[in-house]
């Protein structure tokens, strides 16, 4: 088992290298650089810029260096000094900006994941065991609605409901008076009052998907001979189902960890913008638009790392759950 984990961690190193290279390549791909887009926006607002000044900025930022030199500067900074570079637009170190956003992003991700599990597991089991019952059709219907509604519409609807009928301030994670306040019980309660909307919005599609997967998997497993063995042993039905087939049908649940983290950063950007959430998505979008290359690159790199960590965690959990994987 330990051997397996070490092996997996070692495999991550070349993968990470590849991701960093691709991340840097992507942010280099669009024509021009931050200076070009800065010049463009300044000209839009009618200010003339001295060409000498532009050249000076280019040299300062190192935009004239060849690709590999720029890459090396960036990577060596991260590896040796923990320095992700400097954000041109915010004029602050990238690391500060990212850590600010990462905490809320991770918190929200985990909450959404728990929400997905808590809802999908019982409904999925129910749907599989009572297949083609009224309850199954009801949840199937709900599931398809959840899959079909675009997230931002759901977000807008929930915001309206929350504002109109619950009388809450909407958007963000806190009411205005608590945003800069120190942590207190009231602030926590305020957070809970706000956070359910993004959790529900982000979790709905995933929940619906997982219910379908669990229902299909479990329906297959329920007909396996080992279920009959367990029944013939004299176990009551609910114990039979929970102990044997559910255990095996759980694999996709655990795999979900792997994709839920990157999904939350990149996939729910629109939701985050609609709900005005202080997560990484909107910041990444801004950085990409304004060609703030170190900020954008670092986000892409970090997303890669998060994906890898998510995959690692889910693989280790899978191995714990299923001995067949462990021994292979």
């Amino acid at each position, binding site marked *: 088992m330990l051997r397996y984990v070490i*092996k997996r961690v*070692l495999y991550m190193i070349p993968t990470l290298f590849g991701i960093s290279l691709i991340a840097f390549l992507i942010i280099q791909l669009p024509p021009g650089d931050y200076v070009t887009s800065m010049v463009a926006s300044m000209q839009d607002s009618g200010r003339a810029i001295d060409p000498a000044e532009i050249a000076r900025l280019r040299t300062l930022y190192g935009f004239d260096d060849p690709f590999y030199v720029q890459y090396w500067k960036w990577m060596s900074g991260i590896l040796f000094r923990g320095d992700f570079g400097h954000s041109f637009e915010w004029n602050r170190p990238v690391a500060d900006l990212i850590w600010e956003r990462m905490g809320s992003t991770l918190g929200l991700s985990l909450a959404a994941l728990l929400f997905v599990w808590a809802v999908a597991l019982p409904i999925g089991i129910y749907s599989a065991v009572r297949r083609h019952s009224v309850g199954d059709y009801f949840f199937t219907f709900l599931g398809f609605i959840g899959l079909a509604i675009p997230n931002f519409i759901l977000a807008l609807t929930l915001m309206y409901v929350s504002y109109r009928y619950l009388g809450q301030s909407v958007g963000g994670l806190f009411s205005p008076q608590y945003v800069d306040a120190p942590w207190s019980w009231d602030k926590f309660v305020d957070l809970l009052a706000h956070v359910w909307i993004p959790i529900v919005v982000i979790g709905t599609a995933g929940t619906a998907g997982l219910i379908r997967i669990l229902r299909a998997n479990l329906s297959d497993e329920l007909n*396996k*001979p*080992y279920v*009959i*063995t*367990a*029944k*013939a*042993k*004299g*176990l*009551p*039905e609910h114990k039979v189902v929970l*102990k*044997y087939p559910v*255990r*095996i049908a759980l694999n996709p649940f655990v795999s979900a960890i792997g994709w839920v983290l990157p999904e939350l950063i990149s996939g729910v950007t629109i939701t985050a913008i609609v709900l005005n959430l202080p997560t990484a998505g909107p910041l990444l979008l801004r950085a990409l638009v304004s060609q703030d290359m170190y900020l954008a690159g670092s986000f892409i790199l970090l997303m890669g790392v998060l994906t890898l960590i998510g995959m690692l965690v889910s693989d280790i959990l899978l191995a714990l*759950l*299923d*001995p*067949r994987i462990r*021994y292979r």
Partner: protein
Amino acid sequence: MQPTPTSREGAGMSENPDTVLSVENLSIDFHLRTSILHAVRDVSFSLKRGKTLALVGESGSGKSVTARALLRIIDRNGAISSGRILLRGAGQPEIDIVPLTERSTDLLRIRGGRIGLIFQEPMSSLSPVHTIGSQITEALRLHRKMDKKQARAETIELLRQVEIPDPDKMLDRYTFEFSGGMRQRAMIAMALAADPEILIADEPTTALDVTTQAEILDLIKRLQESRGMAMLLITHDMGVVAEVADEVAVMHYGRIVERGDVDSIFHGAQHGYTKRLLASTVKLEQSRAHEGADAAARQPILSVRNLTKTFGGSGGWFGGNDYAIKAVNDVSFDLFPGENLGIVGESGSGKTTLGRLILRTVEPSSGSVVYRDRAGTETEVTALGKRALRGFHRDVRLVFQDPFASLNPRMTVKQIVGDPLVVGGIASGAELDRRVGDLLELVGLDPMSRERYPHAFSGGQRQRIGIARALALEPRIVIADEATAALDVSIRAQILDLLLDIQKRLGLSFVFISHDISVVRYFCDRVAVMHRGKVVELGPAEQICNDPQEPYTRSLISAVPNPDPRHKRMMHRTRFIA
């Protein structure tokens, strides 16, 4: 639910003090989408202490459904429509299992507690993600109120009783670390955990090799005798019935058509179906008249020399497994035109790999395969390029084991059978239609059925389709890998006769790979016995079966159940210790 006397033995049956379970007029219906299927109709039998009743019939005859109904494990769309299942125990009141509800504690106490079940698939009947020990301990804790420590000790004792070596270590192993026979032993240990009065064994050895089968049957028989259990044995193998059963009930289309003690069934069958079933059982002693066996005078069509295949052995990045397995080890034989060569062996002996090496769907590690084509030119198959290999595959075809998995369910029979012709660019349009019709006729199928899909055919008919596909390109050699293993006995005999008939007409050579020695004996001129990748003995079928030279062959032959209760062979077989 009126108690009508239906038993031929008269109404005195229920008064027999040894009767532990009696089934009276049991009927089970399944509600299908458009109709109601009467899977079991008016079935009555009784189980007696220390005795074995064999329920015999082909697949679909309702025997498994009947057995599972005793535990009330029936698929959701099925239900017992009438009848009684009376369970009697020493000092306990009689219980009728039929009216018990699914959740009643009485029923849960009977399941596993008083009636144990073992069944066919040793690969999938145990949970792959729980240890063997935990699955057995669970049964103990359910029925015998033991604490964890006691249950663990008892589990080790049970595993010892079913002769699993190192039971204290095997307890914590997972099922996929066990062989098929070992799993079946663990399954038996689990069924016996709560010391039930009745054991239901549903095809307990069908998926096992002959030698393993003999050991498992031996074990079940001994445990049954020492515990005085009643056993309901469900099987389609008349050989097993003759070796193990005391009484036999023959099921056909959901009814018991004949019932009696084992000797009277085998030697004085009354019902036509029983007679047919016995007649189609291929006996080891029986072989067809071999014609044209002057093969030695002719040139071999296929010569295999020193063929070897090694799996594994190369280390990965992080030091993979560095041991190698010789799946096929230095195998040599000749196949003559018009000859049937049988390759027998247990699972894992390398016989399937050997078949694939000849076709080069698996690349041999070393050795040579020389094929002599129609013009007499010799080709070294192992050296052929991709294009030339295609020509070789035109002459050497394969028939698969599983008639359900080997046909694409989305292609019509015409597409399946005609596919080799289309791929090879040999026929199309009306010509293709005619060829497919001819082929279907050749294998005894109605050419009109060519537009139908495989699901509309039974297992035996599907195997015929597979054979027609193999014959489409007029091959000279057909490699049949367990081609009859998935079929019922009567169908098996039909398919074997069909293959022999086709061979006579087309002058084919067969390489017939099987674990079933009786089938090989019936079908083949010469037999190669494989054991751990090597051919241990090669000779005429007659000699291998009647006068085996090697100790391994001798043990293999002696483990084949004999379908005659007066001459039980398995119980005093020779064992091979390697």
